C-alpha cells in the first residue's frame, strides 16, 4: 500500500447537517429562486401583447401572488433557522456565524488566503462552515432580514393580515415607499450574486477537496481526513 491508499483508508464520515438544516436549506434556496424570478418580473414586466379584456387574464396577479406566498414561506423558514441556531448541533450553532473571538478572524484570513486569493496552496480545515463562509452567511441573514422588513413594509399597504400590519412603520421610517421599493429591488441583486458565488464555491470545494460537499446538503454527511478530524477534535477540546 502506498501513501495515497493509506490516506484513503483514513477518511471519516461526519454527520454535519441535521435533517432540519437540510430541509431548511432547500426550502430557502427554492424560495429565494422563486422570489428573485417573480420579483424581477414585478420590477420589469415583459410586454405580453394580448387582445382580450382585463378580466380574461390575471398573469401579473399570479406572479405577485407567487411572490407573496413564497415571501411567507421564506420568512417562517428563516425564523425557524434562527431558532435552530440555538438548539441544533454544533455546526448549526449561531456561534459559527458571528465572530466572537480572535480565532474566528484568524481562520477567516486563512480561508481568504487559501481559497480566494490562492496565495497558499492547500486545504482548509473546518468540518462544518469555514469561518469565512459562516461570516458571509451572517451577512446573508442580515440581507434576509432587510428583505423581509422592506418586503413586508411594502406588503403592509396591500394587506390587512396581522403580520403585514406589524410592518406599517417601515415606510414612514424610510421616508416613503419610493425609498422602500428602491432598496427592496436593489437588495434582490445581493441574492442573485450570493447564489452565483455560493453555488460556485460549493462545487469548488467539492472539486478541490473531495469531501462530498455537494452531497452534504442531501444526506448530511461530509468525509473528513483522519488528521483533520484529530486536529479539530483537539482544537475544540482545548
Amino acid at each position: 500500500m502506498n501513501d495515497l491508499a493509506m490516506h484513503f483508508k483514513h477518511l471519516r464520515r461526519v454527520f454535519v447537517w441535521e435533517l432540519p438544516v437540510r430541509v431548511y436549506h432547500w426550502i430557502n434556496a427554492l424560495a429565494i429562486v422563486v422570489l428573485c424570478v417573480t420579483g424581477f418580473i414585478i420590477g420589469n414586466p415583459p410586454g405580453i401583447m394580448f387582445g382580450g379584456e382585463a378580466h380574461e387574464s390575471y398573469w401579473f396577479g399570479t406572479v405577485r401572488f407567487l411572490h407573496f406566498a413564497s415571501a411567507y414561506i421564506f420568512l417562517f423558514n428563516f425564523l425557524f433557522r434562527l431558532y435552530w441556531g440555538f438548539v441544533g448541533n454544533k455546526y448549526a450553532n449561531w456561534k459559527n456565524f458571528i465572530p466572537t473571538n480572535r480565532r474566528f478572524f484568524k481562520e477567516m484570513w486563512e480561508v481568504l488566503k487559501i481559497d480566494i486569493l490562492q496565495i497558499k496552496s492547500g486545504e482548509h480545515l473546518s468540518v462544518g462552515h469555514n469561518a469565512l463562509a459562516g461570516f458571509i452567511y451572517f451577512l446573508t441573514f442580515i440581507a434576509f432580514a432587510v428583505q423581509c422588513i422592506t418586503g413586508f413594509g411594502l406588503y403592509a399597504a396591500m394587506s390587512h393580515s396581522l403580520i403585514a400590519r406589524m410592518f406599517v412603520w417601515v415606510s414612514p421610517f424610510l421616508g416613503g415607499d419610493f425609498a422602500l421599493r428602491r432598496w427592496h429591488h436593489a437588495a434582490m441583486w445581493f441574492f442573485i450574486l450570493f447564489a452565483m458565488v455560493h453555488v460556485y464555491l460549493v462545487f469548488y470545494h467539492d472539486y478541490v477537496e473531495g469531501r462530498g460537499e455537494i452531497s452534504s446538503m442531501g444526506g448530511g454527511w461530509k468525509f473528513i481526513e483522519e488528521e483533520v478530524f484529530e486536529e479539530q477534535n483537539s482544537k475544540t477540546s482545548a
Partner: protein
Amino acid sequence: MAQITTIGRKTYYDDIIEKGYSRRDFMKFCAMMAAYLGLESSGVAQVAQALQTQHRVPVIWLHFQECTCCSESFIRSSHPIVADILLDKLSLDYTETLMAASGHQAEVAKAKTMKDYYGEYILCVEGTVPTDNNGVYCCIGGRTAEDILKEAAAGAKALIAWGSCACNGCVQAAYPNPTSATPIHKIITDKPIIRVPGCPPIGEVMAGVLVHIITFGTLPELDGAKRPKAFYSKRVHDTCQRRAFYDAGLFVETFDDENAKKGYCLYKVGCKGPMTYNACSVTRWNNGVSYPIQSGHGCIGCSEDNYWDAGPLYRRMQTFPGFGIESNADEIGIGAAVLTAGGLAAHAIATNIRKNKLIEDLITEGKESEKELKK
C-alpha cells in the same frame, strides 16, 4: 385635542337659523356633514353639537417659497365651495393672495389676529423656508420667512403644512437645493402640524381638513407621517381605475400606443401610483372629474417625500443618487453579475493552475482506489 375656539360670538347654529333655515334643515345638514366625514350615525349629534357652539376660526395663511398652486387648488374646492368657507366657516385673516390690505396694513391685520386670538388661531403655511445665507432668499416686509414663521407659530393652536413644499420641500428642495429650502416641520418642532402633501393637494382634501377642524374642534387623525388618515392612507394604485390591467399584466408600452387607447396600466411608462399615498384615485380632481392616470399620464408621485429626486418620470425603477440619471438598480446589478461571473471564471482557471498539485493528488488517489478495487 381641546376645542379649537369658543369666543363670545355667534355660532353656526345662530347663523343658520338667522338665515331662515329650520332646526330640521340644520339637523339634515349635520347628517350630511357626518356622512361626508365618514362618521357613524351617532356622529351626527357630535357634528350638531360642534356647530352650535363654535365661531369662525381665525386662520393665518403664510406664503414663502412657493408657486401658489396650493392656494389655487384650495379655491377649486367644490364641497364646500370656498365662498362659503370664507364667509361662513372661518375667518381668513391673512393671506397675501386674496386679502384686500397691502403693505403695513396687511401686517397690522396679521398682528391683530395673533394678539387677539393668541393660542387659538390655525396657522397655514404654503411654501418652504430658505435657511441658507441667513434666510435672505425669501423676505417679506424686510423680514425673513424663518423669522415670520417662528413668530406666527408661537401663538398658533396648530399648523397646517399645505402641499409638498411645506411638507417635504418640493421642487426648490430638489438637488442641489441651492437655497436650502426647508419644510415646515424641520423648523417648528413644538406644535402639532398636519401635513397635507401633494403638488398641489386636491382642493376638496384641503377644504376637508379645514372642515374637520372647524366642525369637531380637533385635528383629524394622522398617520405615521402626520398626514390625515382620511386622505392619505391608501396608495393611488390601490383604487386606480387601471388596476385590473395591472393585475392582468396588460401595460402601455409607449404613450399613445394601441394599449394606451384601451386604457391599459401605465406602470411601464413610469407610473408611481404604487408608491404614492394620496386620494387621487378615490376623490379625484376638481370635483371628481378625472385624475392624472385617468387622463393618460402616470402618477409622478407628487405627494411623496423627495419625489423630484427619485429618478426620471418615465422610468419605472428609480435611480440611485450618485449613479447618474441613466443607471438604475437593474443596470448596476447586471453589471455586477457580469463582473462576478467573470471573477468566478478567472477563479476557476486560477484554481486549476495554482491547486494543480492538490487536484492531481486527488485524481491519483481516486485512480489508485479504482485500481485497488479491481483487485
